[in-house]
């Protein structure tokens, strides 16, 4: 174990995985010479060479498109999209090809690529550096999605994504890249896709969250100390989803508040709420409530805190379910 920041844990995962498998390569804008704008890929170019840590032209669709071809030549490319909202050009390749190519070949070829990117707001950045685009990715058949909330999971989920036979999108909470530190296992460390994590146990209500919203959920649980025993479920893997963990937790508590930073309509929280409506009806003592970003463009950063789900908004939602 060593204590690392979240971005250091990602860098550690890269060093371990590139060292373990000579087919793994990293590509993206500024990932080589600069080591990534957040330094997630620092040191890889020197250690593994320019052919396995590639500074690409500034072309997100081209990065993912060539990664498809690299997979066909036997590589396992890990593509960095520099920011959440800069990833949208790559959706063309993701939707039309990445999620479909294995199916198209009837399983004859595999496309074990990874797309990873910093995501989310709260960092006082210019426009289009703040989005939570997970719904676009989760909605794409053939593509898996993971979002870590701790340094240990950031390392373990990235390792799992790299080793997975299918394309995986990993969204990393950039707000916590350097502000969050935690114990991270040294050497090989894999957190399997499809397993949620109970971040905190409690019997009265479940707050369901992922990524940067997990610390918000935990702070809300702290604020409710003495008032309610709050369970915090960290989804971690949006697809495949650990439905059993969701149903077990809400089956126990009977109340659910879902927190999502992305806009509300058709967000991933709606999927979680629909699962509870379909499969946990008789366990529920109160309606499922969502606390989300709003259905507006991510706002001017001087007033962005009003957009982000806050501890106060989550606490208010929990009280609403308790008082129902």
């Amino acid at each position: 174990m060593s204590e690392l920041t979240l971005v250091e844990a990602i860098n550690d995962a890269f060093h371990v995985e590139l060292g373990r498998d000579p087919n793994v390569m990293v590509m993206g804008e500024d990932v080589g010479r600069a080591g990534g704008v957040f330094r997630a890929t620092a040191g890889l170019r020197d250690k593994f060479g320019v052919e396995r840590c590639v500074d690409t032209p500034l072309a997100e669709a081209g990065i993912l498109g060539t990664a498809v071809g690299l997979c066909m030549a036997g590589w396992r490319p890990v593509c960095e999209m520099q920011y959440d909202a800069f990833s949208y050009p790559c959706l063309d390749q993701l939707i039309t090809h990445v999620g479909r190519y294995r199916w198209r070949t009837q399983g004859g070829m595999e496309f074990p690529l990874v797309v990873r990117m910093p995501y989310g707001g709260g960092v006082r950045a210019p426009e289009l550096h703040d989005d939570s685009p997970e719904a676009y990715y989760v909605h794409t058949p053939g593509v898996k999605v993971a979002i870590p909330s701790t340094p240990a999971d950031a390392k373990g989920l990235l390792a799992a994504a790299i080793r997975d036979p299918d394309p995986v999108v990993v969204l990393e909470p950039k707000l916590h890249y350097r502000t969050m530190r935690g114990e991270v296992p040294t050497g090989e460390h894999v957190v399997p896709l499809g397993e949620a994590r109970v971040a905190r146990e409690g019997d009265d209500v479940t707050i369901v969250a992922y990524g940067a919203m997990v610390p918000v959920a935990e702070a809300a649980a702290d604020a409710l100390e003495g008032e309610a025993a709050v369970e915090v479920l960290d989804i971690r893997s949006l697809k495949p989803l650990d439905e059993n963990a969701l149903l077990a937790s809400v089956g126990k508590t009977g109340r659910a508040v879902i927190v999502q930073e992305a806009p509300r309509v058709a967000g991933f929280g709606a999927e979680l709420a629909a699962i509870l409506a379909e499969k946990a009806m008789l366990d529920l003592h109160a309606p499922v409530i969502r606390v989300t970003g709003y259905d507006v463009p991510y706002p001017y950063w001087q007033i962005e805190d009003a957009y982000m789900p806050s501890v106060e908004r989550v606490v208010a939602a929990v009280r609403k379910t308790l008082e129902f």
Partner: protein
Amino acid sequence: MAGVLPAESDLRRVIGDGETIPDGEVEGLEERDLLELYRWMVLLRTYDERSVAFHRQGRIGTYAIFWNHEAMQAGSVYALERDDWIFPSYRESAIGLLRGMPVETVLSWWRGHPAGWWNPLDYNVASICVPIGTHVPHAAGLAWGKKLRGEPACAIAFFGDGATSEGSFHEGANFAAVMRAPLVLFCNNNQWAISTPLSAQTAAETLADKAAGYGMPGVRVDGGDVLAVYEVTRDAAARARAGKGPTFIEAVSYRTAPHATADDPRAYIDLERVEEEKRRECLGRYEAYLRRAGVLNDELAESTRGEATDALRAGIAAAEAEPPADIGLVFEHAYGSPPASLAEELAELREVLGE
């Protein structure tokens, strides 16, 4: 970049017109090569003409016609090695036939039957790309990946004139050039993207002019001249293998058929021009060349056409004999390790269907 000249403006030609323009020759091509190319073109032509008929008979679905494109497809593929990869668009749907793919496989694709979805590793022919130009980066990536592995293979991507307007064409071409990937960018400029003429697609004088912007050579060739297409592709592939990077080939042709069986070009095309182009279509020109060279006679032409017709007859019979696909295939193959929800959904569907 040194060594990259402005794109050629004249079309490269080998086949003459039997009157004022004399026939040329391609060094290294022997009589058996000339006849093999002929067999390939006849097979593609027969495939295409029979497919239009099969569509009218309701035996295949909507079909993208490639009549008069056979010279571009056969000539370029003949210039490649078996290890080289082909990235077709829907206009090259039957190009796998030139790599030994069964006729029924391609017909099954147009029938929407899973038997039509091949494993690219079996032929080094990628899946048919339907959205325009989006496979160009795949071909660039494969070529780059082969080069990184020290393997000698190169790749060829086929696309039309309309594809050069797509962002993915640009990104793929640029990537290939920057990575010096062994790639041949083969543009079949048939001058129409459904109803949109080339003049509405680009303000460039020629499509080959785009190559200079990527730092690669741009070559123009008569797309109806199978021998010229062979020669320019052979040169481009040799250049790719020598580590000199990609080449852009603009093969100039003319779409004499509808875009697809669902299209009626009478609304937008110059029918006189179509008739004129049909009179100089690529297979007829090559046949005349072979006859002038004394390589082809009536008997051989007849037997070659007969073989192709037989192959199509057997192919449609085999495609129609495929058993109906199990609905379980709806849920298979998208994932190597699928989410558990897919198995639940299939079980639910089977229950509703009473299976």
